[in-house]
């Protein structure tokens, strides 16, 4: 354990450099650059609002805020896990030549996406002002679901990175799984419209409860303790499983990439 920490200390600058690189290169050579972190959620939320406004009816004046909260969290989760999954393979030339702790690659991918996500929450604040959603003291609690989401993404990232080294199919399978997660996370509809016998679907969704609690914070409600418990379970289990799996298999990576 001591050795791991020492090693981390030695390479934390690399973690910082790789995270910086991911952010810098993401928007390089596009004319609007980092502005896309803000524009992209605005545009997609606009589209989703136009499409789904009829389903919800006109009674919710802050429907765009509702969509935005779900979409921002989901898109961070999907981007981070997708990128982390490919991280070992896309850095294979380096892994074959220089010793670097391998977890640095997936972890830096998740971190860079988290930072981009944090920047894009500016859009959410803007939307709250425009649609008159008053922030309350509960907005401070939003750090809890966000940390859970970060831990969950790290865990899933490590698991997927390991699996994808041995089975390329994971990349396609996870794409399908992400779509399923998106439609069952109540991003653009109210969870209340689903009948009780189908409620288990939400429990099977790792990010549904995180989004639920994040929305509670934004709308000024206290955290839902039951949901908090479930999402903590998902986050911690995935992180532990990810670390164990990654450490067990990392010495075999080089033989498969």
């Amino acid at each position, binding site marked *: 354990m001591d050795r791991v920490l020492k090693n981390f200390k*030695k*390479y934390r*600058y690399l973690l910082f*450099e790789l995270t910086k690189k991911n952010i*810098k290169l993401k928007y390089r050579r596009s004319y609007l650059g980092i502005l896309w972190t803000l524009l992209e959620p605005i545009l997609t939320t606009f589209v989703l609002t136009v499409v789904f406004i009829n389903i919800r009816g006109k009674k919710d004046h802050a429907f765009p805020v509702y969509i935005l909260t779900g979409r921002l969290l989901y898109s961070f989760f999907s981007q981070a896990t997708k990128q982390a999954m490919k991280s070992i393979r896309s850095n294979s030339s*380096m892994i074959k030549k220089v010793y670097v702790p391998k977890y640095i690659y997936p972890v830096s991918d998740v971190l860079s996406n988290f930072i981009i996500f944090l920047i894009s929450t500016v859009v959410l604040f803007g939307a709250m002002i425009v649609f008159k959603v008053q922030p309350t003291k509960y907005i401070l609690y939003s750090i809890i679901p966000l940390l859970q989401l970060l831990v969950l993404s790290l865990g899933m990232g490590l698991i997927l990175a390991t699996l994808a080294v*041995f089975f390329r*199919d994971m990349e396609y399978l996870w794409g399908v799984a992400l779509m399923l997660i998106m439609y069952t996370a109540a991003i653009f509809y109210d969870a209340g419209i689903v009948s009780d016998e189908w409620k288990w679907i939400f429990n099977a969704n790792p990010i549904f409860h995180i989004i639920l609690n994040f929305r509670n914070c934004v709308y000024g409600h206290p955290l839902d303790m039951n949901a908090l418990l479930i999402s903590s379970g998902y986050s911690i289990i995935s992180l532990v499983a990810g670390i164990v799996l990654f450490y067990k298999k990392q010495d075999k990576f080089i033989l498969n990439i």
Partner: protein
Amino acid sequence: MSREVIRVDNIGMRFNLMEKKVDNLKEFLIKLVKNQIRYQEFWALKNISFTVNKGDRVGILGLNGAGKSTLLKIIAGVLKASEGEITVRGKIAPLLELGAGFDPQYTGAENIYLYGAMLGYPKEFISEKFNEIVEFSEIGDFINVPVKNYSSGMKARLGFSIATIVEPDILILDEVLSVGDAKFKKKSEKRILDMFDKGITVLFVSHSTEQVRRICSRAIILDKGSLIADGPVDEICKLYEEKYIDEIKKLKKKKKKKKKSIADTKSAQVNEPASDETGEDTVLGGEASGAAKEDI
């Protein structure tokens, strides 16, 4: 002087060669159910033990596939051995493939920091040495251009400059270093020779006994994954030459003889006058005589 820096203790490296490569889930599951996952074991290295003291310059000789690169990768920490222990004290600089860690979208300057971080240097250190790196690499104004627009020589020069900016305790050289043009080659060789003078430990892999003699003080021979000889460089190089290079020469001679005898029989069948010479000469002779006829 005789401080031990590398200790290789009974190292073995096993590769599982799957008879048919399975890299998708469906095939894997089907084969798992049918109990058809079979591996063919292949030991790239077996029972290798040696120690390297500080200041030793060790040449590793061996034919293709003898396990030289695998051994270096294990010492560099890239590969993990299936058996045995390895201890390395000090900082290793692998000069394997220079510039392999560059990001093509990044500029030269950004890549200096990235590559430095990969080699485990802290940020302050890289900032401090930044100018020295740029100067040594002779990149000039191109330092602010994305690396994808660099020539391969420029990339190699920059990679070499970063990798050797710090004096490592152990230098790993795979094959000969040919970086950039003649001028830079000289400069880089000088830098490495300077390191030698300071008592750096070197591991050098090569097929050429001439190079090994020039660089190393000690040599080992690997053959099909086993360590078969270890000793002073001249002795070992001589042994290597006798054992392998002469063998190859003999083989070549044999082949030549065979060819010659085939050629002989052919020309004998044609019944040309110059039956002692090779087939080619006969043809030429024929043409020449033809031309001579035309002249008449």
